[in-house]
């Protein structure tokens, strides 16, 4: 009989091995999947994970996909450390895109270097405001922030839809539900001519650095850690739980909102109902795959962006179904959580005890 026993302390090595193992196992499982589909497994896995890295076009696109994932996941990681579960970053992303985009439209055709920063501020404020709702409800009424943040996502999507069908609709667009294209001063500049990688990537790197410093040197990072791991100890130490709830939700909401603005004013260039494409949810996987560590998240968001781009490439070059991307992302999380069990528990073989096992066999 095999039993799982809690380890006295979590295995340090496993903490770092688990994500890498999850990725490698997913690739192995993916090869099995390609084989079952009648495709060449080596070619398939190469198409998804290697091919995109050999071409500057793909690398630029990986950064386009990775930037919002990185920003959102960094924001979420603070709360996840403290056991505050913001599942609705997608909604905060959407209101951020909306606020930033509405600002751009209100300032239509105005030139000036102040336009983009103003849009950024509007989007951060909007994301924070959206996340403040669950923070208020949790601290005052003790509601479950998982449900509230998640449900507010759908509200945000509908508000975006209502506004692009109505007040923000392109006046010359034949009633089609989309805003006009933002003017140049309200468009996020690209890093290289002809590619879509934009300066948002640099902002995201900056956020990673700040997060790393905060977790390492600032008392807030320590507080988050303790609040998550030992709530009672945190209370005795004088860390105020409501304040942590507010801080975590506002940080994650603000960063998600900012990511939304970068998306709307970057690769999209206008407001359309399809701006939210699931970054807020994928970022949850990214945060865990990155072990809630800023540098880990940097790596994880890159891997996750790679599966999007690689999955698309496989679809175009090998006519594989679009579900490939989702399958890989799902496997990452599933296998990571599975392997994680082994970081906290160890496997023990236990000699059979005759009576209960006989009874079990009979059952």
């Amino acid at each position, binding site marked *: 009989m095999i039993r799982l026993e809690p380890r006295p302390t979590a295995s340090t090595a496993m903490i770092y091995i688990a994500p890498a193992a999850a990725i490698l196992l997913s690739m192995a499982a993916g090869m099995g999947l390609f084989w079952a589909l009648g495709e060449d497994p080596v070619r398939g896995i190469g198409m998804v994970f290697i091919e995109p890295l050999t071409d500057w*076009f793909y690398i630029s696109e990986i950064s386009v996909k990775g930037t919002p994932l990185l920003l959102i996941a960094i924001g979420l990681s603070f709360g996840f450390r403290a056991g505050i579960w913001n599942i609705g970053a997608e909604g905060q992303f959407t209101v951020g895109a909306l606020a930033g985009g509405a600002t751009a439209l209100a300032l239509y055709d105005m030139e000036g270097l102040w336009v983009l920063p103003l849009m950024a501020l509007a989007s951060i404020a909007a994301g924070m405001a959206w996340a403040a709702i669950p923070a208020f409800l949790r601290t005052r009424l003790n509601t479950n922030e998982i449900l509230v943040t998640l449900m507010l996502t759908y509200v945000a999507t509908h508000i975006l839809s209502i506004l692009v069908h109505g007040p923000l609709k392109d006046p010359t667009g034949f009633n089609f539900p989309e805003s006009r294209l933002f003017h140049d001063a309200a468009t996020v500049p690209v890093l290289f001519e002809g590619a879509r990688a934009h300066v948002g990537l640099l902002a995201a790197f900056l956020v990673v650095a700040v997060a790393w410093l905060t977790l390492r040197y600032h008392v807030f990072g320590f507080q988050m850690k303790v609040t998550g791991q030992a709530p009672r100890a945190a209370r005795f130490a004088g860390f105020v739980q409501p304040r942590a709830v507010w801080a975590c939700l506002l940080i994650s909401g603000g960063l998600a909102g900012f990511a939304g603005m970068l998306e709307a004013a970057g690769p999209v260039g206008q407001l359309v109902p*399809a701006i939210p494409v699931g970054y807020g949810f994928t970022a949850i996987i990214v945060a865990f795959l990155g072990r809630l560590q800023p540098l880990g998240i940097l790596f994880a968001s890159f891997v996750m962006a790679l599966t999007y781009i690689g999955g698309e490439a496989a679809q*175009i070059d090998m006519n594989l179904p679009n579900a490939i991307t989702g399958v890989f992302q799902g496997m990452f999380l599933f296998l990571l959580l599975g392997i994680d069990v082994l970081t906290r528990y160890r496997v023990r073989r236990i000699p059979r005890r005759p009576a209960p096992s006989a009874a079990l066999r009979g059952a």
Partner: protein
Amino acid sequence: MQRKALKLAALGLAAALIGGPALADGKTKVGFVYVGPVGDHGWSYEHDQSRLAVEAEFGDKVETTYVEKVSEGPDAERVIQQLARSGHDLIFTTSFGFMNPTLKVAKQFPKVKFEHATGFKRAPNLATYSARFYEGRTVIGLIAGKMTKTNTVGYIASFPIPEVVRGINAAYLAAKSVNPDVKFKVIWVSTWFDPGKEADAAKALIDQGADVLMQHTDSPAAMQVAEERGIYAFGQASDMKRFGPNAQLTSIVDNWAPYYIARVKAVMDGTWESTDTWDGIKPGMVGIAPLSDKLPADVKALAQQAIDDIVAGTRHSFTGPINKQDGSPWLKAGETASDGDLASMNFYVEGVEGALPK
């Protein structure tokens, strides 16, 4: 099985092509971008059927690629660009939301030809095409007006864009012309493809008394609900009879094949030009599936007559006198709507209840 064989063929072709430009071996590469899954049995499905027709027509002179379930957001531009970069000569982007991304990529790849469905922005290498689905709506509107016993027709609508509003108006005017008491109930589901939402809307409409359903969404979910509840429905984009053998009265069937074949041919011949095509029943872009045996002979005859008249050019779906919903006049007696009016239609005609979502 067909899909499997195709995949193998595509794999072989892709392998053969690696390392060389597409035209080196004389093949014309054609790419298709779909908003839904090819298995939606509606809009994207029919585009894909027409893609297969292109392959059947030109055999090994052509190579086609498709990308399905492309969101109308930031990913569209990359997908289109990838197709352009990988040596495609002609690229069809088949949903309205691909308009701006297609235009952007078209500017970057002046030698590649682009075709965008249902949009209004063109460029020297970007053509647009759409179908006069409203002609089909007139036919099903007539049938619905005759077949409803509760005088209530349920309509599942996607987005309040001109194409959809036009469909509602055309169907209502036709139904009203044969049944003055008919009422239309419209539910907006804000999606092109979401079987769950579409089914919920169908159930809600039936609960509100509708006994005939129409839809401007892409899945056969409403047809299945109609079959279960024993009422009638019209298929959308594709013949949906197998989802509602008793329920389906007929379907509006999109048939892009003749257009796609002609455009691919034009690229091969070097005669391709940026055009704006808007074809209806007569050129065959809009088809009407076989009429159900449940229809009485006089209703069948009425529908057939309408089809014949539309083909002959003696019947236009929007022929005055027609007032707008608020009672203000739109078309004078005998006047027909201009294409410009139709392309930008953003109002209900008189008699349709409810307000257009803003």
